[in-house]
């Protein structure tokens, strides 16, 4: 099958609404959106706390979190694998090779991004707002809700960056999900498998969907920053 034929077949898959194809896209989106939600719920308050807290070793924690933004997905996958494997500490939960395990692994990848960017944004905003907030009684951690709300557009960008990282990674979901057809097979793991098997149309079709998704994320990110600019002045 040559490249032109592969593309034609790929578009056929996308437009034809093949159930197996849609199931893969659906699982990918479910896993990634869940992981990003978990990371946001944990990461936004943690990032804000890290921005305002002063404790010994704070600098080291910031460096560590920033470094973890570059955590290789396969390493994140390995860590979660060790946690969830039968002999691991969370083995009895029986989560290995389930979508839940994939959510955990991706959340681990996204969390440092959310914490690091939230920490930076909140710290900058606090430097600007601190005296006014203290004047009206919002000292210390009581400033956090105001800071998160006023940083909402920039923070949306951080969360979308996390979404981009999670949706594109293959290593973590492959290790902890196992790429089981119809159960834990995502777009990225399917592309890796189908390419090696020679089913180029399926791989290409999924690849096109992934790229369109990335485009959509960036469009939303751009829109969020434009809306944010209206308030930021």
């Amino acid at each position, binding site marked *: 099958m040559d490249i032109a034929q592969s593309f034609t077949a790929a578009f056929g898959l996308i437009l034809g609404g093949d159930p197996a194809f849609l199931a893969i896209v659906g699982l990918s989106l479910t896993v990634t959106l869940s992981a990003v939600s978990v990371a946001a719920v944990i990461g936004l308050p943690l990032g804000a706390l890290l921005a305002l807290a002063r404790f010994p070793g704070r600098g080291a924690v910031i460096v560590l979190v920033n470094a973890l933004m570059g955590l290789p997905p396969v390493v994140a996958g390995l860590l979660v694998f060790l946690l969830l494997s039968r002999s691991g500490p969370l083995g009895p939960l029986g989560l290995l090779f389930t979508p839940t395990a994939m959510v955990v692994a991706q959340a681990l990848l996204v969390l440092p991004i959310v914490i690091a960017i939230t920490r930076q944004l909140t710290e900058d905003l606090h430097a600007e707002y601190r005296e006014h907030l203290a*004047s009206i009684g919002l000292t210390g951690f009581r400033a956090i809700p105001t800071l998160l709300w006023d940083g909402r557009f920039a923070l949306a960008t951080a969360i979308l960056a996390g979404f981009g990282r999670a949706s594109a990674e293959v290593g973590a979901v492959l290790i902890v999900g196992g790429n089981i057809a119809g159960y834990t097979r995502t777009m990225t793991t399917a592309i890796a498998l189908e390419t090696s098997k020679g089913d180029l149309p399926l791989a290409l079709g999924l690849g096109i969907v992934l790229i369109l998704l990335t485009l959509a994320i960036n469009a939303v990110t751009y829109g969020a920053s434009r809306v944010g600019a209206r308030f930021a002045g």
Partner: protein
Amino acid sequence: MSGMRDTPSVLPLTVSGLAFEAGDRRLVDDVGFSIARGGLTVLIGPNGSGKSLTLRLCHGLLTPSAGTVSWAAERGTIAGVKRHAMVFQKPVMLRRSARANMLHALAAAGVTRGERAARCEEALARFGLGVLAERPARLMSGGEQQRLAIARAWSLRPQVLFLDEPTSQLDPGATRQIEEMLAALRGEGITLVMATHDMGQARRLADRVLFLHRGRLVEDAEAPTFFAGPASPEARAFIAGDLVW
């Protein structure tokens, strides 16, 4: 004004032996004065004289290295509500509309939801900001932002309002508007304490002058007395427009 006499006051404010150090530098040194009810007290002096720091120490934004700031009522609060507010040189505007900025401050001060809206509308109307209510605050002009900052502080019903060079970044037209606002607030019986290095502004507004120089309070006088002829050589030099170091 007569109504205010019946309510308890956080004043007088008594400052004694006040000092503030940063590193090994003493930026405010043994400053003492008392602020009674009413009128506009101006803290004047060249840059680095300690005016802004003194205001921040009084408002509780900074902790003194030595000395005390004491109010007639505990920490300047009455029934748990802080009765002194502050307006800054560069207005701090949240990334929200003018109205939301005011509602936020009222919420932070513990005002009930129903009363917040009423007080917000009252303040917007009182200072002619109604037409700007929905505008993102940070997109307003410098003068509009400072008017909003003063209206926001006013909505908190302070008995004392500290102002740190509120017009130093504004053009003459906006400066006049702010000065008119301040005169009106004084007329309402709000006690104003303002830092400025603008001698003309001090002449126009001050009832009393505290002249600071290198972190020390050099002169404390009624405005007419001070402007007729200050007692200290530093203040004389400052009035004459000489540089004082």
